[in-house]
C-alpha cells in the first residue's frame, strides 16, 4: 500500500465494511482512510456502491465492520450525533426542503450548531452568500423552484452551514454546466485550504483526481484499486476506464497499480 507511508492522522478510517440491502450485499468489505486535511476521491462505475458507502459512513444504513472518525468508533452513534461532530454529507439526491426558502434551508443546515449554542452561524451564512452570490439573490425563493445547478449550490451551502470537519460530497458536479463544475472544484480546493477534509465521489474522474491527494476505485462493492491520486491517474486501467484515454495496455504489473 505504497501511499500510506506518510505518517498522518487518519480522520476517518473505515475497515472491512459490509453493507446489505435486505439479502443483497452491496459493499463487501471496503476499507478506506481519509487523512486529516486531505481530499480523497472515490471513483467507480454506476452501481458500484459509492453512494451506499457514504450513506453507511453517515449512519443512514446498518453496517458490519468498523468506522472510526476523529479517533473514536462511531458504530453506535446516530446520524445526528455524527453531524454534531462535523461529519456532513451532500447526498446524491440532495434532499433539500423543497417547500422552504433558500434562507431557511441554509439556516437548518446549522441546526446542530444552534442547539449547541454556537453564536457564529450568521457569519457562516454570510460567507456562503459571498461564495455563492446566486443563493444570496434568491434567498426568499423556495428551494423546490431552483434550477438544477442552484440546487447543487444550495445543497453544498447547507452542508457548509454545519461547519464540517469531514465533508462528504456525492457527485457535486452532477448535471452542471462546465463553468460551474470548475467553480465547484475551485471551492473544493479552497475548502481544503481552510482545513476541511473531503471525501469526494465523482464521475468527473480527471478533475477529481487532480484536486485530491489519494483515490480509490470502487467496483461491484469492492475496492479494486487504491493509491495516491497521481499514481491512479497514470494507471492504464484507470486511464482507459475512467479518464476516457485510449492507452496501449502496458505489461502486467505496470507501475502504480495497487491491487487490494
Amino acid at each position: 500500500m505504497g501511499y500510506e507511508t506518510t505518517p498522518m492522522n487518519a480522520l476517518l478510517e473505515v475497515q472491512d465494511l459490509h453493507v446489505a440491502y435486505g439479502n443483497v450485499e452491496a459493499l463487501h468489505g471496503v476499507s478506506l482512510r481519509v487523512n486529516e486535511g486531505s481530499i480523497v476521491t472515490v471513483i467507480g462505475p454506476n452501481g458500484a456502491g459509492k453512494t451506499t458507502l457514504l450513506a453507511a459512513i453517515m449512519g443512514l444504513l446498518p453496517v458490519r465492520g468498523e468506522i472510526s472518525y476523529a479517533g473514536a468508533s462511531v458504530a453506535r452513534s446516530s446520524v445526528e450525533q455524527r453531524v454534531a461532530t462535523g461529519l456532513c454529507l451532500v447526498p446524491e439526491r440532495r434532499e433539500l426542503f423543497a417547500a422552504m426558502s433558500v434562507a431557511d434551508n441554509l439556516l437548518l443546515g446549522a441546526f446542530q450548531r444552534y442547539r449547541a449554542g454556537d453564536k457564529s452561524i450568521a457569519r457562516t451564512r454570510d460567507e456562503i452568500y459571498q461564495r455563492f452570490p446566486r443563493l444570496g439573490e434568491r434567498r426568499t425563493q423556495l428551494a423546490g423552484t431552483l434550477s438544477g445547478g442552484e440546487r447543487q449550490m444550495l445543497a453544498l451551502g447547507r452542508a457548509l452551514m454545519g461547519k464540517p470537519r469531514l465533508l462528504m460530497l456525492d457527485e457535486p458536479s452532477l448535471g452542471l454546466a462546465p463553468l460551474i463544475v470548475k467553480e465547484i472544484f475551485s471551492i473544493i480546493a479552497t475548502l481544503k485550504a481552510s482545513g476541511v477534509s473531503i471525501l469526494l465521489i465523482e464521475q468527473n474522474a480527471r478533475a477529481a483526481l487532480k484536486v485530491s491527494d489519494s483515490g480509490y476505485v470502487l467496483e461491484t462493492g469492492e475496492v479494486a484499486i487504491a493509491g495516491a491520486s497521481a499514481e491512479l491517474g497514470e494507471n492504464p486501467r484507470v486511464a482507459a476506464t475512467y479518464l476516457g484515454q485510449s492507452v496501449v495496455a502496458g505489461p502486467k504489473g505496470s507501475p502504480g497499480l495497487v491491487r487490494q
Partner: protein
Amino acid sequence: MAMDLSIATLLTQDGITNGAIYALLALALVLVFAVTRVIFVPAGEFVTYGTLTLAALQLGKPPGTVGLLSGLALVAGILELCSALRQREWRRLPKRLAFYVGAPLLIAGAVQLMAPLSLAFPVQIALTVGIVTALGPLLYRVAYQPLAEASVLVLLIVSVAVHFAMLGLGLWFFGAEGSRTPAFTNASLRLGDMTISGQSALVVFFSLVLIGVLYLFFDRTLYGKALRATALNRVGARLVGVSPTLAGSTTFTLAALLGAVSGVLIGPITTIYYDSGFLISLKGFVGAIIGGLASYPAAAAGSLLVGLLESFSSFWASAFKEVIVFTLIIPVLLWRSLTAHHHEEEE
C-alpha cells in the same frame, strides 16, 4: 319549525364554535401525520382527558391523569435505562431521565397536592393543560418511538391500540358518568336581532390565538422549521441533525396541548363522557382529510365546514346529525382522492 334569521345565527354560531375546536384537532392530526406518519387516533382521548381532568379539579379531587402520567413516566424511564444499557451510552441519560421522569413526576405531584385546595378557575385550567400536555411526549416515547421506522399501517395499528387503552383508562379514572365544566363567561352581546354568546366568542378567540402562536412557532423559530423540515424530507432533516426522536416528541407535545385546550374549550358546550373523544376527533379528522392531511389552512376550512354541517343538520334532523355529517363528507373525499396528486419525494 321554520328557520328564521335568529335561528340561523344561532346555528351558525354553534357551527363556528364547534368548527373552531375541530380545527384545533385537525391541526394536531395534520401535524402528527406530517412529522411522524402516525395517524393520531387517540387525539380524542386527549380532549376527554382535558375536560374530565378539569371537572375533577372543579370537585377538588385529584384527577386520574396524575396516576397515568406517573405510570408513563416510570415506563419511559425504564425504556431509557434499557436503551442506555444496550448502547452503552450514559452521557445523555441524566438529561433524558430529567425530561421523561423528573419533569412529569413534578407536574403530577404538583397537581396531586394542589387539587384539594380551592383553586381559582384559571389555575385549574393551567394545571389541566399542563398535565394533559405532559402525556404527549411520554406517549410518543413509550408507544411510538420504538417503532419510528415502521410502516404507516403498523403505526396506525399502534394508534388504534393506544386509543382503546386510553379509552379504558379513561373509564377507570373518571367513571362512566359525564361531566360538564362551567362556562367561562355568561356575558353575551346583542346586535339587533342577533345574540352572540360570550362563551362562543371566547372559544373562537382562544382557538385563533393558539393557531396564531403555532403559526409563529413554525414560521419564525428554528425548532418549528426543523419540524417542517422533517415533514418535508426526513432524510434531509436527519442530515442536518434533526433527530426523528426530537421531532416526534415535540410534535406529540404540541398535539397533546391542542387536545387539552380543545377539551377545556368544549367542556362548557357539551357534556363529555370518557368515550366522547373519538367522535369529536373523527370530525377533526374529516376536516384534516378535506385538507389532504397536509395543508393546514385547508384542514381548518374543512373543520369549519364540518362544524356548520353538524349544527344545521342537528336543526333539521337531529337524530341523523352524525350520519348526515359523515355522509356528506363522502363526495368531498371522492373528489379529493380523484384530484389528489401524490407528493413524491422529488429528485
